[in-house]
């Protein structure tokens, strides 16, 4: 990339409304990237357009159409009648909210102790926390499901929330962040007579806000999109999450294309809208933590 070496004269040329010397390669790259973006968006648009068509439930046109001949919300009406969609949104909200608040709280607690505390067994316990990173969820899912049955928690919010309240990843991330907070700050608070918990709530947590936001975003994506665990522990359709309801409905509505796609649009809409508003933070969170949703 040779042009980086001569970036300054180039900018001057641009300001005088003359074409930069590499306009050909810039245009070619831009067009290629836009074509790629079009391929990314096309399936979404086609899904949305088809979900508006009542005819799509009977027969689809052999040539894909980017706008239906009969736009309407019929399929959405059917989709919301088939599934207790409001209830599913509420369930997802409870599960995502509960796990996120709990995960942030418990991971910060442990992260604070591992970053600033001094107690026998600290290194050993930290290794225990980190070891959980090497245990994939899939390894323990069936025993965990049986365990939930023994506790009589299947088909409750507890079953969907409790297993995800603490984890090695969040603890590690919080420990790294809290380690960078200067000790003098905490020492000053201690001299003023603040208890460790008060220091944690009033000093540590506010200073960790960016990391907490990162963890929250990642956890929301994880939990909103998870389908494996809800499939195991809930069988009552009143306890389904949105994604789970979509997965099951997508199966049974396979022949009603319009209805199935309308359900899919309803399920992804909140996440997509939130993403469009928060895209900068979402992308930064994913890059800084190296974990995708």
């Amino acid at each position: 990339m040779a042009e980086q070496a001569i970036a300054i004269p180039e900018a001057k040329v641009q300001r005088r409304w003359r074409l930069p010397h590499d306009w050909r390669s810039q245009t070619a790259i831009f067009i290629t990237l836009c074509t790629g973006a079009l391929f990314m968006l096309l399936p979404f648009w086609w899904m949305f357009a088809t979900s508006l068509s009542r005819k799509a439930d009977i027969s689809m046109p052999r040539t894909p159409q980017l706008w239906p001949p009969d736009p309407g919300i019929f399929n959405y009406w059917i989709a919301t009648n088939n599934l207790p969609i409001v209830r599913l949104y509420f369930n997802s909200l409870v599960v995502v909210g509960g796990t996120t608040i709990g995960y942030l709280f418990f991971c910060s607690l442990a992260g604070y102790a591992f970053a600033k505390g001094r107690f026998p067994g600290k290194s050993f316990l930290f290794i225990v926390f980190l070891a959980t990173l090497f245990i994939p969820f899939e390894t323990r899912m069936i025993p965990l499901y049986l365990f939930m049955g023994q506790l009589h928690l299947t088909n409750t919010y507890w079953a969907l929330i409790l297993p995800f309240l603490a984890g090695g990843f969040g603890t590690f991330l919080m420990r790294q962040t809290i380690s960078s907070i200067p000790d003098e700050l905490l020492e000053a608070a201690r001299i003023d007579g603040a208890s460790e918990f008060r220091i944690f709530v009033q000093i540590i947590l506010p200073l960790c806000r960016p990391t907490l936001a990162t963890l929250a975003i990642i956890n929301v994506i994880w939990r909103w999109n998870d389908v494996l665990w809800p499939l195991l522990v809930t069988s009552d359709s009143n306890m389904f999450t949105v994604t789970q309801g979509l997965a099951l409905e997508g199966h049974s509505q396979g022949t009603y294309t319009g209805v199935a796609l309308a359900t899919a649009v309803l399920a992804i809409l909140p996440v997509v809208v939130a993403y469009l508003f928060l895209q900068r933070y979402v992308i930064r969170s994913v890059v800084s933590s190296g974990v995708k949703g």
Partner: protein
Amino acid sequence: MPGSAPSSADSGIFSGFRRAFRGTLVWYGFVLPPLFLILVFIGYPTALAFEQSLFTEIPGGREFAGTYHFERLFQNQVFWGAIGNTVLLGVAFLVIIIPLATIFASMLNRVRRGSTPLKVIYFLPQLTSSVAVAIMFNYVFQPDWGLLNGFLRQLGITNLPLWLADPRYSLTGSRAAVTILAVWAGLGYYIIVTLAGLQSVPTDLYDAAAIDGASPLQSWWYITLPSLRPTFIFLIMTGSIDALARFSDLWTLGGPGGSPARSLQSIVMFMYQQGFESQDFSLSAATAVVFFLIVLLITGAAFWGFLRREFRALR
């Protein structure tokens, strides 16, 4: 450091002792609640998986089975099919997506206008649940009127592929279709991570190459790609583990059996089917143990390779 080191003046040895002791206890108050959650909901079920794989449930109790369930598992053709599918899909995915993401990230790094909206668009499928993506692609790949075949028909192709309905090993069969799906859905994440790697390459390397008369393509090949090595290792490591754990999209498209003809059954789907549907908990636990060991092997190898290099750089 803090906590146990009283900063205010102390009156005597005993109060200092008490203070130090109390300073220690407080930290257990912080660690124990999350530790309890981890032990109960991560440690205990994992131990249970290992235990269950060694025992057979019989009415009124259970008996030690030794390696019986593992032998049963390794003689199970369906298990090997699932392993084969998982590995094949994972390798195909990584082989396609990493070069593709590198090319797109390099272009995004060079383009002067509009890189932010482009990034947002490429990243969009990553935010969409894999279930919704699978439902969408179920129709995109529909042989008669799907978006893809409709497009191919416009191009004048008459012998249209069956995609998800074709269980054969072919470039237009079900496995190819779900690989296209995964690449489409994952590309944004791989681009963003590669872009972060690209932006951390020191620019003076490029300046030096330009002075030596290297063409942009040459400096891309000899500077950019070698500098991206840690990024590639990271992506291959996390990508392999994700590919091994692949479940939701394949389950949505093919059910627990991975139809058609088990061509889409992954190892986690096999585990789910054996444990949840056939209630064969011992076989499912044995699969879980094998799965755990494979993931551990990959993580260990990648960690070792990665960290060794990092440490060498530190020295």
